[in-house]
């Protein structure tokens, strides 16, 4: 009712405006009628009738003006109609898919390609999005019972992503429908991260803490007056706090990576330069461990799309591991070569050590968080159990592959395959 009232008010207002706009004409007209009345002596009724006709004419005249304004709007709308749906879809930042009555993809924008891959026009949507809730969404929208619908859709693999998907029909009688995916992964991940972080971290942090509190007890009790023991214990305690600090750093960097599983496109990384600077930065550690680092770089451009800082961290972690755990081999070979044999052409970076190697049963699992081949050795080498986990996360974001080859007693080779596109 309130709306209706507002409408009346609006209509009254427009009439008032129209009359005001044509006030001069009206005044002139009424003046003319009155003049004729005075001079010709017509009856009062005729005068009133003439005035009414004038008022009506004023309204009609402005109606014509409004019609011409509508004509202008129509021209603008046809400009919108000329705009291709393709451009409109490309301008939408979220993944957007247009499909027809048979759930066949008609068009998908660039964001949809980036998010789901392998979306070609002609592909059936119900074959691509098989999750029960997506099937139900497609069925309900295609049945024509509802004009639009929304569901929450989660993809677990290869990286966990959550979307709010809305489907709606486009216009009237076009037989086209549109799916828009709104990414909600970040919010989900932040929620999950808190729980995960506490579960993982508390266990790992408890071990050094227990050792520190044990030493504090000893220092206050039996070792109170023993300067030599005190010095030794304080040293151990310092090592333990150092370990906790490293662990927290690694956990934070892992969490940061998990928060943004996609890479911003557009950056190119020169692998030769990146790997070179990693080798330079780890020079002191290699010398300390008595390991010589050898380079074997292929000729030609070695550029891949990616984030330089993250790839730096990948090679740093791999080379650091090679220097620490392959120490007995005395040398580490870093090679970069074009790897065009696989399904995706790219560049292989291989870091090979000649240490004790990794037993076959550990290989599939060493990228798990806190998985350690040899707990004691890892602790003495100041490992946190997260290095390879970080490597794997970064490589997943780069659409890259990590392959590990090793034979016990002959060393291990960690090979990173980075696709060129």
């Amino acid at each position, binding site marked *: 009712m309130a709306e209706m009232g507002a409408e009346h008010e609006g209509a009254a207002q427009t009439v008032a405006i129209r009359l005001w706009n044509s006030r001069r004409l009206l005044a002139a007209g009424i003046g003319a009628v009155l003049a004729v009345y005075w001079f010709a002596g017509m009856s009062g009724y005729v005068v009133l009738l003439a005035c009414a006709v004038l008022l009506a004419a004023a309204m009609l005249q402005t109606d014509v003006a409004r019609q011409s304004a509508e004509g202008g709007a129509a021209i603008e709308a046809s400009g919108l109609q000329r705009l291709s749906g393709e451009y409109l879809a490309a301008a939408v930042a979220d993944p957007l898919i247009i499909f027809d009555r048979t759930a066949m993809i008609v068009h998908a924008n660039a964001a949809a390609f980036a998010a789901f891959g*392998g979306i070609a026009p002609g592909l*059936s949507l119900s*074959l691509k999005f098989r999750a*029960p809730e997506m*099937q139900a969404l497609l069925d309900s929208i295609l049945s024509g019972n509802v004009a639009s619908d929304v569901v929450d859709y989660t993809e*677990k693999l290869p990286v966990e992503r959550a979307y709010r998907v809305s489907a709606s029909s486009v216009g009237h009688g076009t037989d086209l429908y549109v799916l828009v995916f709104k990414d909600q992964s970040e919010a989900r991940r932040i929620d999950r991260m808190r729980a995960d972080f506490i579960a993982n971290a508390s266990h790992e942090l408890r071990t050094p803490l227990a050792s520190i509190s044990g030493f504090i007890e000893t220092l206050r009790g039996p070792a109170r007056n023993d300067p030599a023991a005190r010095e030794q214990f304080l040293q151990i305690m310092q090592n333990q706090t150092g370990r906790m600090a490293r662990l927290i750093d690694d956990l934070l960097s892992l969490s940061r990576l998990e928060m943004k599983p996609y890479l911003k496109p557009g950056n190119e990384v020169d692998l030769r330069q990146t790997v070179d600077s990693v080798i330079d930065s780890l020079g002191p550690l290699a010398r300390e461990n008595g390991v010589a680092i050898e380079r074997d770089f292929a000729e030609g451009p070695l550029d891949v799309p990616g984030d330089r800082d993250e790839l730096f961290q990948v090679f740093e972690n791999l080379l650091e591991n090679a220097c620490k755990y392959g120490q007995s081999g005395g040398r580490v070979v870093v090679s970069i070569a074009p790897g065009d044999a696989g*399904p995706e052409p790219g560049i292989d970076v291989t870091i090979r050590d000649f240490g004790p190697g990794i037993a076959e049963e550990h290989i*599939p699992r060493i990228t798990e968080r806190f998985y350690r081949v040899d*707990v004691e050795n890892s602790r003495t080498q100041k490992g946190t159990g997260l290095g390879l986990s970080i490597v794997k996360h970064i490589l997943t974001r780069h659409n890259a592959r990590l392959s590990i080859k090793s034979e016990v007693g002959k060393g291990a080779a960690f090979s990173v395959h980075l696709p060129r596109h």
Partner: protein
Amino acid sequence: MQSVHIVSAYDEELQYLSKRIAAMGGHAERMVEQAIAALVNADPGLAQKVIRDDLVLDEGQREIDDKAIVIIAKRQPMATDLREIVGAIRISADLERVGDLGKNVAKRVVAVIEGRQPTSLFRGLEALADLALTQLKEVLDVYASRSVENIGFVRDRDDQIDAMYTSLFRELLTYMMEDPRNITPCTHLLFCAKNIERIGDHATNIAETIYYIVTGDQMPADRPKGDKTDKIVLPAAQPVK
């Protein structure tokens, strides 16, 4: 996808078959995902839901079988169409088995969570399930896109799954040797791991069927066997740390 038939109802029937297969695939993926989640998060409610959901897959398989038989009888299909239909029957059978295996994992949830296990046990199982589910997802994506050129990846994944399974098997054995109280949950977990490994095998089967549907040839038969658990023996006297 297919060339157009003169009778458009025939096309619709074939499309309906592949749509049902995709829906079954989605259900099977979801069931396995939820069964593992129920196991890891100790959630018997979710496990019950998975067990109930298996009915949908059984239903789906029966429906696809019926429809396929009717199409064969009615349309006398040839070449690609015939392969498509027979393939649908085979894939639906594989998917139904995947659902059964997921259901079996869900059934074991109650027994496993009785004595709370260290999370590291589940982490291995989760990683194994991730591999198997990735394989299933990729295979079903190939079914949608029909791009069988690089279906070789399935074999690589199968290798990884087998290696992972062998490693898990060894790990569970050591837990059992450490403490006899671990034997009950670990035995159930062994079966869960075996079930997941079987899911990977079914995914490989589906890949082979898809290859056959699209090309008309059988996939080269050099399927590797990486499952080495038949040879694992742990020395009884010396418990592993």
